[in-house]
């Protein structure tokens, strides 16, 4: 497919135009100076020179807390999949996530696999199919980034709708899907075809970005050693001692999909069934109704978390359960560090 150029001075006008027809979710600056994904009210909200956000945009597809259905007596009513933080009902407008990083988008591709595993999860896919992704590749990896090792960045080769590469005064625009192609065609007056030099510049930019990574790990070697039980139990014990059971590593993880179902009674013979984020580090995650817990010790839960991400998920979904975004490193109160653990295993 042909590649395009978008001049940076045309970016905000483009977003303004898109905002008339789509609900745009983009990196915006919160009151405390934090960059977070949020629906925008104006194109001026959008911040594109950001290091990655505190949380991935996962929650716009899989909200932290949502109602699935409600009941009254014997009547059940399905709750419509809501927008998860949007300003308008989901069905009335299509959504664009503008500026999502390749690692986070890879997380969405991963979730696609899980939420279609047994059956298609209506809540997830209504939101997913209603959304178009405009990726912003990463010229500058951050301290804890290791997406290059995970194969999820700093730029993607396929899977996206549109991917932008920062070429200083312009963006190099790649199309990866029919939805992306249609969007460019509809707004083609914002773009011009990329020249051969620009194509070369894009390749150079990607190479340069790849050279900047400080963190490099070997996912395959780690998985092999774990499968062969070559990892000493003491490693998991050391991690368990540090883990403070906050659940943060799951909450910030672009690929963590686990949820719990709860019932909330709202009146006499009335209530709603809700879904909330869950984490495998909680003891209640595996505890049975009778009180027996197959993973009673925190060590076993921490171990299982790493096995799931690095061994079982690649087997089940054909993708690593870690996209190398480094968020769990930042959020962990006990300084548990995914790449550091992997280095430990690689030794």
């Amino acid at each position, binding site marked *: 497919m042909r590649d395009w150029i978008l001049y940076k001075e045309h970016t905000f006008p483009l977003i303004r135009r898109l905002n008339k027809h789509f609900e745009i979710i983009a990196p915006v600056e919160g009151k405390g100076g934090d960059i977070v994904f949020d629906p925008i009210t104006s194109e001026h909200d959008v911040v594109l020179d950001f290091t990655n956000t*505190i949380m991935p945009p996962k929650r716009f597809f899989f909200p932290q*807390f949502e109602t699935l259905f409600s009941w009254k007596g014997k009547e059940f009513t399905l709750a419509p999949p809501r927008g998860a933080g949007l300003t308008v009902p989901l069905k009335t407008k299509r959504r664009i996530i503008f500026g999502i990083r390749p690692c986070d988008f890879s997380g969405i591709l991963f979730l696609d696999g899980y939420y279609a595993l047994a059956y298609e999860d209506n809540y997830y896919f209504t939101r997913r199919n209603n959304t178009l992704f405009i990726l912003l590749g990463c010229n500058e990896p951050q301290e804890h980034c290791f997406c290059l090792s995970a194969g999820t960045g700093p730029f993607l080769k396929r899977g996206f709708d549109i991917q932008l590469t920062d070429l200083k005064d312009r963006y190099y625009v790649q199309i990866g899907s029919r939805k992306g192609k249609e969007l460019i065609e509809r707004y083609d007056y914002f773009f011009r075809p990329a020249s051969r030099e620009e194509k070369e510049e894009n390749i150079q930019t990607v190479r340069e970005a790849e050279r900047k990574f400080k963190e490099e790990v070997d996912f395959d070697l780690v998985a092999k050693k774990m499968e062969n039980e070559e990892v000493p139990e003491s490693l998991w014990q050391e991690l368990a001692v540090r883990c403070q059971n906050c659940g943060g590593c799951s909450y910030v993880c672009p690929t963590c999909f686990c949820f719990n179902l709860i019932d909330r009674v709202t009146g006499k013979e009335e209530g709603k069934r809700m879904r*909330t984020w*869950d984490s495998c580090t909680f003891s209640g995650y595996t505890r049975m109704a009778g009180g027996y817990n197959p993973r009673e010790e925190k060590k076993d839960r921490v171990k299982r978390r790493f096995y799931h991400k690095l061994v079982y998920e690649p087997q089940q979904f054909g993708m690593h359960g870690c996209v190398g975004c480094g968020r769990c490193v930042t959020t962990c109160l006990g*300084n548990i560090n995914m790449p550091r653990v992997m280095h430990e295993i690689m030794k």
Partner: protein
Amino acid sequence: MKKILTTCTYCGCGCGLYLQVEGNEVIGVTPSREHPISRGSLCVKGWNIHEFIQHPDRLRTPLIKKKGGFEEVSWDEAFNLIAEKFKRIKKRFGPDSLGVLASAKCTNEENYLLSKFTRAVLGTNNIDHCARLCHSSTVVGLATAFGSGAMTNSINEIEEADCILVAGSNTTLQHPQIGSRILNAVEKGASLIVVDPRTTQLVSFALLHLKPRPGTDVAWINGMMHVILKKGLANLDFVKKRTENFPALKRKLAKFTPQYVERITGIPKEDLKEAAGIYARAKRAILIYSMGITQHVTGTDNVLSLANLTLLTSHVGRPYTGLNPLRGQNNVQGACDMGALPDFYSGYQKVSNAPCRRKFERAWNVKLPQNKGLTIIEMVREAGRIKGMYIMGENPALSDPDITHTVEALKSLDFLVVQDIFLTETAQLADVVLPGASFAEKDGSFTSTERRVQRVRKSINPVGEAKADWEIICDLSKKMGYPLNYESPEEVMEEIALLTPIYGGIYYDRLEKTFGLQWPCWNKKHPGTTFLHRGSFSRGKGHFTPIDYKPAKELPSKKYSFILTTGRLYYHWHTGSMTRRSSTLHREYPEGFIEMNLQDAQRLGIKNKEMVRVISRRGKITIQALVGELIIPGTVFIPFHFKEAAANLLTNPVLDPKAKIPEYKVCAVRIERIER
């Protein structure tokens, strides 16, 4: 922007977080990464804070008890009844027959207004709050030693210390951000000493773990000082220049030899010597303490002893070096600062001090009472004298010691008003219940344990007909003939700044652009204060108070052979009114337990997870036993969150004579196996 920046409502760390809102619903949380404390992380309670906010059990309308049951009524009807009853009680029995409990969960502005309402409208100084139950001994002790009862340092300074001594604080669980700072310091090479009868998570990172018998803190602290003096490790130059009353302390310490201390505390003498040496030799020593020190009949003595230790070693008044009481609640520091105390106006200005009183009389345009009011436990214990009570956001029917007595006392009141977000055990006893707003439903400010005053921002409208607590106080005051006219909490803060020197420079426009300001902040140009007592102490010279060891009030006997100590879990908050309604948190610990040592359990024939009966002189409960080696033999632990097995049915209501804090950390119990 649908993510609203606010301050967490659980512990005193004061994390910055964004609430994610859809429509009028809070559906998620994002930690702030720029915030100096949260730095991109939260504890499990913060991460799940949205779960309680709009729970179906929230109180949505005012309630009046009629014929034994609650009936929904209008705000007008509720206010009319309260105004009428309070006026009648005041007229018949005098203003001091009324008592008020403020709330460490509510904002600074709300606590200030409630203090104003109590003193100016009800006309009494009978106002107190749960700080009495956690750190009143700190306030009294550190005021005596240094002149100011708060953390001397800031949370992030802990990372730079080279020695950290943690006494009676389960820091990773109760102040997770501070626990994380301790871990960072250890990773950078700091020596950690933990003093606790329980083997907490911190112990895994500690160089040394001292396990004193509960209630013997003065002995080990005096013992450390004895060793420090003997080894010549005291900083006598500092002692000479910046302190007073050293000779008296020195005399007192003479008998606290390591052998003598070992007999009292059970701490091996070699360990004590080693700990003393490490602490005294450190260049940047941070001492952290919490309820394990304060909740004793000797709470003030314990705090004074720790202050002595820091003065003797000059480990106070410098960056990365000091004495740091960790305040538990999100705004317990603020509620104290605002004068929700029987003896102080805002900023610790004494009620008994005539110029202070005149200042407030002028500002509030009313004659104010002079005599010191009653403390929490005194109000309840003197229920005969107190006829009417107003309780905002507190749950003494589960949190007081010996709650059987508390419940009887609350029932015997002529009139009880409870303002809360859920129908708590206390609210169930009320004549009128007023639905307040959660932290997500109002504007205001909280002051964290490091004296950081930060904004709380309204994210959604209050549920049902609930109202922000400051609005409720203003409306009620108006009904009682003293209009409190404020447009917003911002206007209340302007009044606070005007009347409270330590908050003199704290205005909303300054809080807007920053993550808060740390008091003392004397004027609008003042940048706030990261650590206290640089150059000189708030009171001038640091004061040594010689302290003798006194045993706990209720020691184990033949009939009650175990020491019970109480506390909290990581997943629950106090009486559980919020956390037990948060599905993620409640699932982790759906019920209470008693933690006991394997030796004791084997002797009594008790197996892990078996139900046992725990009996004290005041009550008995049935509870699951968790058997292990995380607690010393002879001592047992029960968390106080669970009403089904309430630890406070057992605890001893005996008070520290100076601070009036109850001895939650020591009482004698008997444990019985339940025959099947």
